[in-house]
């Protein structure tokens, strides 16, 4: 299978995401100004500071030419993973519920955190066990997930929260300890922590690899 990893001006973690994808499949970098997704099987919207976070995080990237194709791909059921800034972009694009607000400390924080897998029967977590703890680093200034009450209740009722910060790990103040949330259809998922930075025993944990493996499993089963 082949992943497409987006690159906007100001994207920082696209090579890391590409390396992570290449542990379970192939990966191609897709340029923001293009519209051709080159037939990839899944899209990763990586972390960084697209367009310098100007205006509002993710707000400008959402209008990049490549995003029109990504939105179409998502509506057609293609798997899309948004990491950190990618999560913010997908929220801005209306592909994921809620919004990301500044951390409660108003500071950038880089920290290894424990996450709890809420559901394991999904496109993005099928290589995990329900209730499993994953150790994955998070690093961001604007990672406090928020949704209005009615939407939040709906998200919880639908089981859209796939990853939650373990007790005591929610440093950014996210509502309901939400670390990662999917869309209703289940093919788009965004999270603030960085699974692509947890794929190599030399540089830390390998728990993040399970998310990429899950996508590969899903694509493999649906070809």
């Amino acid at each position: 299978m082949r992943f497409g990893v987006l690159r906007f001006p100001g994207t920082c973690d696209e090579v890391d995401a590409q390396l992570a994808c290449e542990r379970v499949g192939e990966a191609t970098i897709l340029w923001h100004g293009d519209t051709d997704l080159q037939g990839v099987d899944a899209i990763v919207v990586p972390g960084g500071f697209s367009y310098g976070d100007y205006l509002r995080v993710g707000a400008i990237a959402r209008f990049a030419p490549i995003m029109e194709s990504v939105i179409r791909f998502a509506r057609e059921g293609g798997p899309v993973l948004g990491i950190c800034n990618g999560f913010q972009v997908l929220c801005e694009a209306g592909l994921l519920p809620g919004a990301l607000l500044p951390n409660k400390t108003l500071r950038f924080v880089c920290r290894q955190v424990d996450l709890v897998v809420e559901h394991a029967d999904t496109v993005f977590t099928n290589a995990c066990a329900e209730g499993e703890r994953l150790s994955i680093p998070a690093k961001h200034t604007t990672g406090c997930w928020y949704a209005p009450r009615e939407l939040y209740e709906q998200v919880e009722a639908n089981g859209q929260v796939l990853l939650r910060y373990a007790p005591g790990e929610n440093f950014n103040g996210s509502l309901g300890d939400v670390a990662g949330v999917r869309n209703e259809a289940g093919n788009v998922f965004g999270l603030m922590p960085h699974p692509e930075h947890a794929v190599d025993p030399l540089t830390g944990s390998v728990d993040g690899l399970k998310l990429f493996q899950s996508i590969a499993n899903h694509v493999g089963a649906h070809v």
Partner: protein
Amino acid sequence: MSETATAPHRALGLTDAEYELIVDKLGREPNAVELSMFSLMWSEHCAYKHSKKLLGQLPTEGPYLLMGPGENAGAVDVGDGLAIAFKVESHNHPSAVEPFQGAATGVGGILRDVFAVGARPIAVLDSLRFGELDSARSRYLLEHAVGGIGHYGNSIGVPTIGGELYFEGPYEQNCLVNAMALGIAEADRLTRSAATGPGNALILFGALTGRDGIGGASVLASAELGEGDADKRPTVQIGDPFAEKKLMECSLELLDRELLVSLQDLGAAGLTSSSSEMASKGGLGLDIHVDRVPLREPGMEPFEIMVSESQERMLCVVEPARVDEVLAVCAKWETTATVIGEVTDSGRLRVLSGGDVVGDMPVEALVDDCPLYDLAPEKPSAPIYPTPARTLPPDTGARAILPALLGSWNVADRRPVFEQYDCLVQSRTVRRPDDADAAVLLLPAPADGGARPAIAVSIDGSGRRVACDPYRGTVEAVLECAANLACVGAEPLGLTNCLNFGNPEKPHIAWQLSESVRGMADACRALDVPVVGGNVSLYNEGPEGPIYPTPVVGMVGRLPDAARAGRLGFAVEGDAIAFAGPFAPALPGSELAKLRGEPLPDGLPEIDVASVRKAQEAVRDAVRRGELRSAHDVAEGGLAVALAECCLGGDHGARVDFRGAGSEGERLLETLFGEGAGGFVLSGPRPALAALAREIQLTFVGEVTGSDLVLTLDDEATLSWPLAELREARSRGLADAIG
């Protein structure tokens, strides 16, 4: 109005004699454009006029050296055809005036130096000094400088992997912000900055040129701080990491496609310095049309365009046939690029505006003819630094001293600061801050599929120790850096330095500077580590006096197997603990002495550098063989603090035998908290340590066990601390001060 106020060259920081020399070189009076350019090129910051003669002592040759001082950054060979380029630079005065932008643009500037030589930046480290944190000014400077570093480094996708942070009264007005960057390149693709080929085009690309940073190098960086510094805020540049990110990717793509003849970043003194340096290195001339430079605001004068320090700009020389391709790559990265001039064979830097020549100077006069001054060093007859205030009650015993030291601002956990930096991006970070004494970064897998090599890097320099003894304090700083590398198993390949001192025209500062450079030169020779480049920051003083003399050393090493990179924390219950190395603890000049409000001693004990080197090499080799479970060098706070750090780092307790040190009194305190070079705390299986004991001085002192740190003093007396108590003290020190 007095003559002093009216003489334009004096207002720009030039002496009358220097002005006369400029007139002599030009054969006429300089016009306003030329005078501005000379004042910058002949400033301390650009010309090193008070330090250049001293710097000649530093060794700049070594077996791994690829590119030495004089280029934008130095570089060493790390094997497999790869080079690591690196450099440290100061941004002290801008940070003292506007800490967020000052620190941010310090990071931006050092990153440009690294990608200007064709290396992709892979890491940033920072070395920071502020006044004591009970001052509101120091807390403000710390918070905003750290914020600025994080803002720039995080946004551009380069990890900040290490650094150091000290608080001392003499930095209260004049904080120090030194930033170091490392980049990776194929060794045969390192780029130099010499302009070549008359007729080639000169292209300026990156951000627009504005009025920010005018005169930064001369007015701000080459004079003492004083009253009215708030008025200097317009001389501080404003950084935009998004612009730099695009500029970096654009520059690397231009180099990768071999479209450039040479490349240079615009730093201090902007277009003036970058263009004249390029012309000087190529032995050629340049014509610059300032009316072609894209401006951020209309109506800028030619001299303002030539001296603007607007950030995120680069200058390159391009063959005429490649100009269109270069402009196309810049357009792809949404980076403005303009042909602003051409290389000539005139040997002159000519500035043109609207077809008129508005400046015309020999390149040599600008770059090489600044007079170099001899210092007049004189050891001060009386102490020049105030005695620090006592913060520990007079008869505090060892039991209470350890938590107090661990919670003191110079020793406390740095987590509240380093958590504000992304230390992971680019997927190379093998040892994060707190894991080990040095940061460790993966190198690419070798072609033969063998073990994955890595580089290690550390930055260090204790102004307090150098203030006690400029020569030995500087030797200690170099040894400390090398010790940090040894603890992760790395062999030092090269170092970069930033010499932060007061006003060198004063004899006592000249003495500190001369002694310190002599110490650095001797230590580098003793370790066979060359200096690949660096930076000098002088005039770091204000009405209250000078800063502590602060030579900061950044050292880069290599280890053959990243999987065996050392850690500092005790790891396995039951492991033996040993003290190793020729360590002779002494209290004068230590952190404990500071907490007890004792004056700085006049001199530090002699150091047996050869024995220290031998101990470092033995520790390094043992780490490389995978025989040690932890290695940590003894630094601020002495053995007891080092032991506590090993316990907290690995979350394991320890029982350690200090019999013979006495159960109370100064001798015990000296043993526990005294400082000096050459000491290590090691843990591992007993046979491995016993083997090491045959090579170097090593004493078995205890065992990794339980969840307390227990020190046995004699048959009846022990000192004991639950780790939770020590952790609490260590983690609250900085967190309480900065929230």
